[in-house]
């Protein structure tokens, strides 16, 4: 038997997490906004896409739009929701920001569960419209989906690259390093951050969420728990917070490594031990990397080397320094 | 010799702020380090009190080399330190602030603290108030009082008079003098503000500029007309 379709599927999932990690990198790596609400944004995008494509007469009725229109719609909806969440949240600092985004994601998931009429509740949304499915044999579709995921990843990567090489990206990193100083240079830090939040929301709804939906084939709230958020974060931390490609590479390595375990054949009795491998791997990778290679596989300095020469390691977000500055 | 600092260099990370500093303090002596803002006075003290790594030289306290000692062992060795910033525990009451510095059984500790508080009537009145509610002068008083609890032979004070009104400054100076006279302790005292008020109380003084410690001087020399002006203002009045 060929293992290729299996790997195609695993890789597709890896790319979904990778795209999310690239976007998270714009937000957290460059923007310093340590967002624990990714699952919430993906959920908003995914449900928007599903409900926009779902036919009006389906179990969970939707608008029956073609997939591309739904992608645009999902992007816009997620962008608006993100901006609305960002508006009160972004004024908070440090751990308060973390907790608030965390809580927002949980509220979104709970609302999806509760609002059965709109979202199908825990029953979920089925009958997802997958683009171009009718032109291909089902056994070939995993490859098509992988191709679509790869195309979406390229788009996200292009946006990420553009950001990293732009005045906006530089401003974002500057405001992360020293907010009072950035303000004193005329940067409207709050506006830049909300715009960043909105951009990440737009890209999440436009690309990440739809590909995830195609991959899943059906939506249930259980696919949008904090596990998803932590998976994306772990991918980014492994790859290197602040680097250009780290998130993508880290996420793909992480998902492929944890799914590769399926290829080890074990007695079903011991399967539960094997199944514990994925969380174990995620946890151990996080602990080990943060301890011995906190900058990840690729580092921010590596990413913006150009003319820079390495000096001693710095502590970013050093609260004392920033407090002193803002005092 | 109570404190012997020999050619010490210290700083933050790779950044050396104080270079090759040497100074001594004897028992029953008040020694001042004077210098303007940002010349490395606090850094020097942090090096001596082991909060910062020493990259060269050594520090000997009463015959014991403390270059490799942990900061929390210094109190036991007879060194009391009052840092400039964060010299109290804001969330603890006055009494608790004092109790933290005392080892041993609770009843004897309470007794010692009460005895000490008797020497500071303003603090006595506020013994059950949180330190965060004290005024700046009271806070400095509390900081000095807590440093005294370990019965230090050497007291290291980092600008204990900063930001205080001249009258209050005089009170703190009296406190410090009493330490020397009644307890026979040595005092290493960093002064930036009010040098004219403070210096007369001092036995010996070092001038610190740009991370380098001068040779010891007599305070009277510094207090001569124009010397301080030249050191501080760079002009002769």
């Amino acid at each position, binding site marked *: 038997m060929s293992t290729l379709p299996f790997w195609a599927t695993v890789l597709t999932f890896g790319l979904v997490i990778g795209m999310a990690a690239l976007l998270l990198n714009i937000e957290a790596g460059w923007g310093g906004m340590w967002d624990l609400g990714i699952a919430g944004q993906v959920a908003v995008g995914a449900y928007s896409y599903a409900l926009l494509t779902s036919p009006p007469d389906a179990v969970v009725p939707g608008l029956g739009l073609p997939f591309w229109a739904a992608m645009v719609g999902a992007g816009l909806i997620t962008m608006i929701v993100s901006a609305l969440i960002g508006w009160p949240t972004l004024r908070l600092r440090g751990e308060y920001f973390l907790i608030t985004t965390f809580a927002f994601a949980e509220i979104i998931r709970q609302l999806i569960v509760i609002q059965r009429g709109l979202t199908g509740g825990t029953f979920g949304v089925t009958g997802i419209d997958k683009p171009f499915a009718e032109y291909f044999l089902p056994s070939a579709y995993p490859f098509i989906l992988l191709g679509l995921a790869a195309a979406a990843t390229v788009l996200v990567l292009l946006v990420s690259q553009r950001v990293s*090489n732009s005045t906006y990206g530089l401003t974002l990193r500057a405001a992360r*390093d020293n907010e009072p100083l950035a303000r004193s240079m005329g940067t409207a830090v709050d506006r830049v951050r909300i715009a960043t939040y909105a951009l990440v929301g737009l890209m999440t709804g436009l690309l990440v969420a739809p590909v995830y939906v195609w991959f899943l084939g059906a939506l249930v709230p259980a696919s949008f728990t904090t596990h998803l958020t932590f998976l994306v974060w772990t991918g980014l931390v492994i790859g290197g917070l602040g680097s250009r490609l780290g998130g993508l590479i880290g996420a793909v390595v992480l998902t492929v490594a944890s799914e590769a375990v399926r290829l080890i054949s074990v007695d079903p009795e011991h399967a539960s031990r094997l199944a514990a491998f994925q969380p174990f791997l995620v946890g151990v990778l996080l602990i080990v990397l943060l301890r011995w290679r906190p900058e990840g596989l690729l580092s921010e300095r590596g990413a913006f080397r150009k003319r820079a020469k390495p000096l001693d390691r710095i502590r970013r977000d*050093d609260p004392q320094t920033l407090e002193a*500055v803002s005092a | 010799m109570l404190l012997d600092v020999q050619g010490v260099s210290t700083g933050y990370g790779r950044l050396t702020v104080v270079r090759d500093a040497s100074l001594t303090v004897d028992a029953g002596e008040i020694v001042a380090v004077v210098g303007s803002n940002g010349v490395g006075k606090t850094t020097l003290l942090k090096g001596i009190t082991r909060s910062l790594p020493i990259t060269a030289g050594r520090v000997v306290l009463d015959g014991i080399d403390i270059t490799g000692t942990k900061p929390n062992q210094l109190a036991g060795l007879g060194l009391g330190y009052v840092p400039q910033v964060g010299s109290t525990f804001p969330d603890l009451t006055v009494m608790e602030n004092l109790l933290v510095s005392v080892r041993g059984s609770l009843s004897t500790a309470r007794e010692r603290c009460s005895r000490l508080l008797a020497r500071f009537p303003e603090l006595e009145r506020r013994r059950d108030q949180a330190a965060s509610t004290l005024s700046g002068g009271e806070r400095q008083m509390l900081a000095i009082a807590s440093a005294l609890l370990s019965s230090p032979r050497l007291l290291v004070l980092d600008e204990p008079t900063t930001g205080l009104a001249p009258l209050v400054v005089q009170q703190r100076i009296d406190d410090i003098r009493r330490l020397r006279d009644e307890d026979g302790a040595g005092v290493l005292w960093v002064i930036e503000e009010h040098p004219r008020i403070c210096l007369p109380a001092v036995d010996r003084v070092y001038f610190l500029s740009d991370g380098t410690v001068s040779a010891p001087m007599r305070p009277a020399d510094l207090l001569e007309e124009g010397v301080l002006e030249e050191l501080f203002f760079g002009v002769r*009045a």
Partner: protein
Amino acid sequence: MSAVLEVRGVGKTFGGVTALADVDLTVSTAEITALVGPNGAGKTTLFNVISGFGAPYTGEIVFDGVRLTGRKAHEIARLGLVRTFQTPVGFPSLTVHDNLVVAAGGHGFDGPQDALLRPRADRRGLRAAAERADQLLGEAGIEHLASAYMAGLSPGDLKLLEIVRQLASRPRMLLLDEPAAAMDVNQIGTLSRLIRGIAAQDVGILVIDHNLAFVLELADRVHVLDAGRLLAGGTPEEISRNADVRRVYLGEEAA
């Protein structure tokens, strides 16, 4: 003499403690103005008030004919009133060059729209800012630092860059917060030359510093702040002879 900044009767309290009371101050572009005073006198508080950091205050501040009351820090900066900070960390994880580019890039970086929708214009802007950064590094004589990270610089270099960086945005007026702290004699000399050079280009300068020697040598006009109130004002010579100033600084009993 053209007044670029006018501070009129500014007062401010923190939880019942008076930090500033009825401060009047005028800064003109023709001369370098300095503000001195002991620790806790309220110098930095006044800077924060002027530059839009921190909570509301009483009184009125007018810059170039524009009332600053209620304006946010970045808006004030965009008017051309730019400050430096006492702790000169800059943007630690960016290179020195990038630090200057951020400052030189103008004030219009409010979001990703330009980067994504008008990439060519954005690139042009970035290139222009980079050229301005190169030029400033050259003028300050620190080209060799261009590719170093801020986090690795010495305190003196950081202090110098704190000013050079803020110059990149071509301000109308600079507020310098303790620029000479942690500098050695040579660096202070460079700093004084730099500040005079800036002042000569019709940029208003208000500097606060502890180092009286430096301030008295640099400034044309000195104000003394003590416990939130203006104690004296005048030429450096007048100030260094002023009995009140001596009392505050050296602790002499008032004669």
